[in-house]
């Protein structure tokens, strides 16, 4: 039982990291209908920026988090402006191939610049004790991860539902042409979406680094794919869907590793993906949309 609750807590922690990355996927997909394959690599870049600001510039955890988020936001907008914007009217397949290209470019560009070696996050950035609740030890890091991601998700909900840019984002994702006719600056709105999504990925990167301590240039691939699975699971394009999808996926993974299938952990996400695509392609919270000709 104790083991079970501990695994559940681990699952929720990793799940909230997936959820943070999934939010970026889902927002971008909701607006430009593009799977931003490079999103997992923005997450990786965020982890490295956080690492360098902690080790070289000796910032604390929260300043590093903010720096990483800001830098990733700029990075995301650059990617969008340089690679995706010229392709907005191209075929979907062309956009998808470009996204794969951008992703590989970031990964191998990073390896080219700094080499492929691992870095490990310093262990003592956040002096947190482990808690003991009902006889179950829960690490302080897990609580911190959960708190930070919940705060960021609430902030995102606030931005999307209460601010002007959020309203513009919702309008553009609903109908881009109509939004343009209503005088919304579609290009800026799309850039803002990329900025917010990438900032969340950057935050996820720093948290991931702190939790798992090991970071490397190809670390973004698997969490990125799993976060995409989470986004599809919850219903792509739907923000609460990405959060629930991420958390559920994290918990499923933790439970699979707890029952002795830790070698199969990475396969579980993809099995979940194929099952959800077969039985409920619109995702948990999605609605089936009829295709019009």
């Amino acid at each position, binding site marked *: 039982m104790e083991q079970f609750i501990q695994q559940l807590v681990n699952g929720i922690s990793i799940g909230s990291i997936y959820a943070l990355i999934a939010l970026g996927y889902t927002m971008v997909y909701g607006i430009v*209908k593009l*799977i931003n394959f490079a999103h997992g690599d923005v997450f990786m870049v965020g982890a490295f920026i956080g690492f360098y600001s902690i080790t070289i510039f000796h910032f604390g955890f929260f300043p590093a988090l903010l720096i990483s988020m800001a830098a990733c936001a700029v990075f995301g907008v650059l990617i969008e402006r340089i*690679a995706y914007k*010229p*392709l907005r*009217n*191209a*075929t*979907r*397949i*062309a*956009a*998808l*191939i*470009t996204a*794969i*290209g*951008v*992703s*590989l*470019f970031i*990964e*191998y*560009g990073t*390896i*080219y610049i700094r080499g*492929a070696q691992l870095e490990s996050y310093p262990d003592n950035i956040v002096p947190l004790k482990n808690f003991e609740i009902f006889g179950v030890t829960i690490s302080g890091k897990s609580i911190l991860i959960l708190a930070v991601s919940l705060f960021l998700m609430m902030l995102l909900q606030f931005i999307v539902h209460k601010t002007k840019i959020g309203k513009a984002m919702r309008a553009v994702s609903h109908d881009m042409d109509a939004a343009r006719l209503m005088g919304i600056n579609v290009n800026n709105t799309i850039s803002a979406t990329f900025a917010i999504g990438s900032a969340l990925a950057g935050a996820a990167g720093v948290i991931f680094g702190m939790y798992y301590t090991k970071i490397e240039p190809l670390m973004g*691939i698997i969490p990125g*794919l799993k976060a*995409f*699975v989470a986004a*599809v699971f919850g219903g792509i394009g739907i923000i609460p869907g990405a959060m629930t999808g991420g958390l559920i996926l994290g918990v499923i993974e933790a439970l699979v590793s707890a029952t002795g299938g830790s*070698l*199969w952990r*990475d*396969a579980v*996400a*993809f*099995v979940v*993906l*194929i099952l959800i*695509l*077969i039985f409920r*392609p619109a995702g948990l919270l999605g609605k089936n949309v009829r*295709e019009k*000709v």
Partner: protein
Amino acid sequence: MNLLKKAKGFWGTIVLVVIFSVVTQLLINGGTLNSFYVNTLFSIGINIILAASLHLIIGVTGQFSIGHAGFLAVGAYASAIITMKLGLPFPVAIIAGGAAAAIAGLIIGIPTLRLRGDYLAIATLGFGEIVKIVFLNIDYIGGASGMTVTHLTTWPWLIACVVITIVVIVNFTNSTHGRACISIRENEIAADAMGINTTFYKVMAFIIGAFFAGVAGALHAHNFYIIQPPNFGFLKSFDILILVVIGGLGSMSGAVIAAIALTIISTFLSSYPEVRMVIYSLVLIVMMLFRPQGLMGSKEITSFLKLGKAAKGGVHHDGKNTVA
């Protein structure tokens, strides 16, 4: 008359290929070609089969599959089991590799091909990863440390497989079934409305593509002495994808030319793997920005030489309506 002309062109090409392969075999036997060139030649052959098989799925049928390395892995492992564990001859292994991959294609194709565009891409990517993880966890075939395979791939086998692959895929593309596949690429809803059983043809193209990827897997396994699951990951799928994309989506000769050119380039860049990947990814981005239809578009080399329209992969319309 026309038929005679076509047949003449076909047999002419076959004769040329036979002469080429005999000369190459003599050069290999005589030691004029050292092992570096021989290895490059073998890689080119395997990559041509892979590019042609993916060309059928992406270029002709328009189904964006990025888990092709999964089929390669299935073929490689199935054939290795046939020769190494069961001790059966190599030709059986080639066919078994293809058949195993085709069955995998059927199993994965029926559920996922109902999906479109992006979802299909992700599902096939997931399939590739699942295959890799399954092979990692089976001790019978060596798990993570892989499986050693004797070198059985010879030049005649390789060239025969390449020729058969190309002939089958070109003829398929030009058949009624191939036309149906092209119509699915151009507009799936319209094809459906015209009474084409789109799911059937998508699965069919998928199975044929998977079969030849499995054949390539058999040749690959018996060429490189060792097969390990991590070699069949997403990056391998990407290596195959880039051949098709750069050659031109819908152009068989484009895929073949890209396979030859890129294999030679990557052999020279093999001591700088990250530079190679940076260049590849930049080429991919620039290509999509400035020439999204690939080098050859959907044209074939024969249409430049005006030798006839023997291998035309249909015309791409550059509008937004393409299904994938």
